[in-house]
């Protein structure tokens, strides 16, 4: 069930990238897609357990796998820096193309 939701998020984001006309909406759709990917990593990690993996007197089994979580932290940072970069670019583009319609921009700069 959770898996289905995660994959639905990824797909919806992808369709948003294709079908939304506005450039800002496309970027937000990409953000939705990357949220789905992040959720997938969390889900993969949590599949084996729910505890936080801290060394101590706690029982050794049933902890969530820390590796995908550590990895996805990197990916989150990369993802938001790319989005920030794209939004700055869009802000500059918006000065001369206030509607930010992808098709119009593409016609102009072909």
């Amino acid at each position: 069930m959770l898996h289905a939701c995660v994959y639905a998020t990824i797909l919806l984001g992808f369709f948003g990238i294709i079908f939304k006309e506005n450039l800002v909406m496309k970027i937000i759709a990409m953000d939705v897609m990357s949220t789905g990917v992040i959720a997938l990593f969390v889900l993969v990690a949590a599949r084996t357990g729910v505890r936080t993996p801290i060394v101590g007197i706690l029982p050794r089994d049933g902890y969530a796998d820390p590796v995908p979580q550590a990895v996805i932290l990197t990916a989150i940072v990369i993802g938001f820096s790319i989005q920030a970069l794209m939004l700055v670019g869009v802000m500059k583009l918006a000065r001369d193309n206030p509607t930010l319609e992808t098709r119009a921009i593409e016609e102009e700069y072909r």
Partner: protein
Amino acid sequence: MIINGTILWLALPFFVGFTVYLLPGTARLLTLGVTLVSLAYAMALFGQPAPLDLHLLDSFGVTLLADDLSAYFILTNALVTAAVILYCWDTSKTAFFYTQAIILHGSVNAVFVCADLISLYVALEVIGIAAFLLIAYPRQDRSLWVALRYLFVSNTAMLFYLVGAALVYQTHQSFAFTGLRGAPTEAVVLIVLGLLVKGGVFVSGLWLPLTHAEAESPVSALLSGVVVKAGVFPLVRCALLMEELDPLLRVFGVATALLGVVYALVETDAKRVLALSTVSQVGWVIAVPPAAGVYALAHGLVKAALFLTVGNLPSRDLTVLQQRPMATSLWLPLMAGSVAIAGCPLFLSFGAKAFTLEYALPWQGIMLNVAAVGTALVYAKFLVLPHRRDATSTAKLGLWTALALLLGSLLLANVVYLEAYTGPKVLKALAVIGGGLLFHRLVVQRFRFTLPQVLEDFEHLIGGMSVMVVVLFLMVGSWLAI
């Protein structure tokens, strides 16, 4: 010794990149120094008897694998970046440009030695950001849009790749490349899709022509010379580690080689011809994985030289260039580059083509020979351009030092495969070039076709990814034994 050296060498470009931003006066010298270090490292790697296999930290740490294949790609990266820095030497590029160029250099290097999916992901994303900033460097709306489009396409592809990486981890509890074996079909499909888009292969590579043609010529040289190789290198690496992937690459390679040539044949814009020819040459690189290193080196050097030269021509439009003769001093390197990429003896490209054809499967041999004739036809467009000795040229000293480095290396590098120089092979290469020139004069010049560019629209690029997913599912699921 070489282990510590590897880590230092990987970190150096990033360190220098930020230092350069603090000390702008030293930008050119320091960045050139870094490329020399890479050059030395590649040479040291060639001298290693066995591949270098590194596991940093414990089993979940970063894994690196450096062998002869990496050495060829690193050598390409070092030479092309050095040439671009030399080219920009007497221009007014700011320290920001050099910072980005050297960070790009460093992250491309990282791709060429990494051996796990996540290090690869990080390196590819850094490449995306650095390339974005380089393309957007002129700060005009047009270059900004081209850069945005590039970053968007590459980031969407990398999201698919990440999903694939998560699935591989789920199966094997490890991110190593070899985990692709035994991973579910969808994991392989998504990872391969991400890399195909990044490397500009087949239909998913159609973002490449506009991006490479609209960037400034030194940036185009970097993008075409090394950055696309960062996408195809992991594919080649995986195919060599796991034979199951080999047929997939061979099919895509040949298809790409032919697609790029067909598009380039009908094009009349000089930079777009070069960019489309890059698509075709990327196909050659992956078509025969065992020969990928040599071919990548040959293509990187010659394409960088061609982009730098074409950037100095009086016009980009080939029909205008037909009417307005260029300076002979520019025509000579243009001619050298054109015959080199078509596989003329004396240049490394000849040896690389012979090497590739030697390892090609029988059905591939025929198709690749067709692609080679196509390449000769494409570059005949440049060979027939008129030139005059007294025409003025705006070329600066930087162009000549860069060209000397690139073309000189292209001649010197012949030592890697001297066996190619046999009578029949030399004759065949000359016949291909001569035939291409003749056919161009007799037939191609008389007719003009155009192919629709609609597939290069932004939405179609993203939509093309979903089509590729379906194609890959069919191929991987029913045909490959993974």
